C-alpha cells in the first residue's frame, strides 16, 4: 500500500519545487514601436532596439507564481521627436527603460513541451520610466544635449515562456520568456544631467498619450537562489 502511495506521489516530483521564494535573473533583448505626439499626427511610428537584463523576486506555489519583476534595457533610436516645455525636440537618442510590476504566472504542469520544460503565461500591471538623452537635439527652445527627458508611463505586461521544472531551486532552473508590454506616458520631466551625481529636475508636465508604444522582449535567465 505504501509503495502504491509512493508510486502515485512520484510523478508530482516533476512538478518542480513549490512553496518557496526565488530570485531569478537573466539577459534580455528588446525592440519597441513607439508613437510620440508629433509622429502620431503623421501616422508613423519610431522603432527602438535595446539590450538589458531582467530580475524577478518570485514566490512559487505549485502552478501559480507571484513575482515582482523588473525589466531594464538600454538602446538607441534615430530621428525621435518629442515635445517638452512647449517646444519640439528632434534628434538621435540613447534611451534607458526601467519597468517594474507584479506578475501573476501560471505554469501548465500537465503539458511538458520538451523533457521537463513546461510553458507558462502571466500578466500584470507595469510602471516604467523611460529616460531619453539626445546627442544633438534640434529645437527652437532651450533644450540641449546636457539635459534629458524622462517619461513616467503606465501599462501592462503579458508574458509567455518556458521554464524547467526541477525538484529543488538549487538546481537553478532556466527560463526563456517572451514579453509584450503596452505603455502610455503620464508625465514628462526635463532633467539637467550636467552633474552625474546631483539630480536637478528642471520641469515636470502632464503628458497623457504623448508617448505610447508596444514593447517586445526576449529574455533568458536562471533561478539564482
Amino acid at each position, binding site marked *: 500500500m505504501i509503495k502504491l502511495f509512493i508510486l502515485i506521489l512520484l510523478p508530482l516530483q516533476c512538478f518542480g519545487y513549490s512553496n518557496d521564494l526565488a530570485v531569478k535573473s537573466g539577459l534580455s533583448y528588446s525592440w519597441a514601436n513607439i508613437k510620440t505626439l508629433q509622429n502620431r499626427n503623421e501616422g508613423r511610428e519610431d522603432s527602438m532596439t535595446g539590450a538589458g537584463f531582467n*530580475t524577478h523576486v518570485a514566490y512559487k506555489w505549485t502552478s501559480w507564481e507571484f513575482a515582482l519583476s523588473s525589466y531594464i534595457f538600454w538602446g538607441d533610436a534615430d530621428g525621435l521627436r518629442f515635445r517638452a516645455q512647449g517646444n519640439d525636440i528632434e534628434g538621435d537618442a540613447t534611451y534607458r527603460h*526601467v519597468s517594474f510590476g507584479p506578475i501573476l504566472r501560471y505554469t501548465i504542469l500537465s503539458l511538458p513541451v520538451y523533457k521537463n520544460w513546461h510553458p507558462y503565461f502571466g500578466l500584470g500591471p507595469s*510602471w516604467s520610466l523611460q*529616460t531619453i538623452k539626445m546627442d544633438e537635439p534640434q529645437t527652437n527652445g532651450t533644450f540641449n544635449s546636457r539635459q534629458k527627458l524622462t517619461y513616467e508611463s503606465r501599462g501592462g505586461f503579458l508574458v509567455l515562456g518556458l521554464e524547467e521544472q526541477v525538484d529543488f531551486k538549487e538546481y537553478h532552473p532556466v527560463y526563456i520568456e517572451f514579453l509584450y508590454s503596452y505603455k502610455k506616458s503620464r508625465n514628462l520631466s526635463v532633467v539637467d544631467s550636467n552633474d*552625474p*551625481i546631483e*539630480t536637478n529636475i528642471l520641469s515636470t508636465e502632464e503628458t497623457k498619450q504623448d508617448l505610447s508604444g508596444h514593447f517586445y522582449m526576449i529574455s533568458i535567465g536562471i533561478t539564482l537562489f
Partner: protein
Amino acid sequence: MKLFIFIYFLLTSTFSYAEENKNDADQSLEKKLEQQSKITRERKYSWGYIDRSHSARETGRHLLGIYGVTWLVYPLSQPDVVKDRGSWDNYKNNFGKLVFDRDEPFWNWFVHPISGSQLFLYYRANGYDRTSAFALAAISSTLFEFTVEIYTEPASVQDLYQTPTLGAVLGIALENMSMYLLNTGNLFGRVMGHFLNPSTLFWFYEGKVILTPEVDLNKKKGALTLRATF
C-alpha cells in the same frame, strides 16, 4: 651457541637495517614536506559560508543594528545633501510618499546595488542563507528608504526594488569571487577578497575555519582538522 649468536646477529642487523630504512624514509618524507611547503602556499584558514538558523531575537538585533548604522552612515556619506536638502519639514512631507526618482545612473546603477550587495553579504556573514539574507536586506533597505532617506527625498520605486534585488545578484557574484580569492591563500588574493567582501574582515563573519594539518611521521598518516569559531 654459535647458532644462537648467528641468529641474534642476523636479527639485530635486520632490525637495525629496518630502523635505518625507517629513519631514511622519515627524513625523505620530512624533506618532501619541506620542499612542498616551499613550492606550495600553506593556507591557515578556509573561507566559506555556514548557514544556520537564527532566533527571532537575534534577527531583530541585526535589523536594529543595521537600522542604527544607516542613521549614522547617511549624513556622514552625503553631508552636503543632508545639509542643503534635509529638514524635518521634508521628513513630514515625504513620509509615506513613493515616487519614481530621476536620479543619475551613478546612484541607481552603482551606489544602490553596491549598498544592497554589502547588506546581503553582511547577513550572509552572520550565517543567514541566501534567501533569508535577501529578505533581511530588503527589510533593511525599505526601512532606510521610508524612515531615513525621507529627511532629504521621498522613497523611490527604483531604490526599493533595485537595492535588495540587484544587490543580491551582485552579492552572489561578489560572494563567489571573494571566496575564490580568499581561498587562494596568497596575499593579493586575500586583500582583494576582503576588499570585495569587507564583511569577511569583521568579528561577526562566521565562515572562517582554521585549518590544522597534522602529519604523523611514525604511522605515516596525515589529517586535516577543521575548527570553526563563532
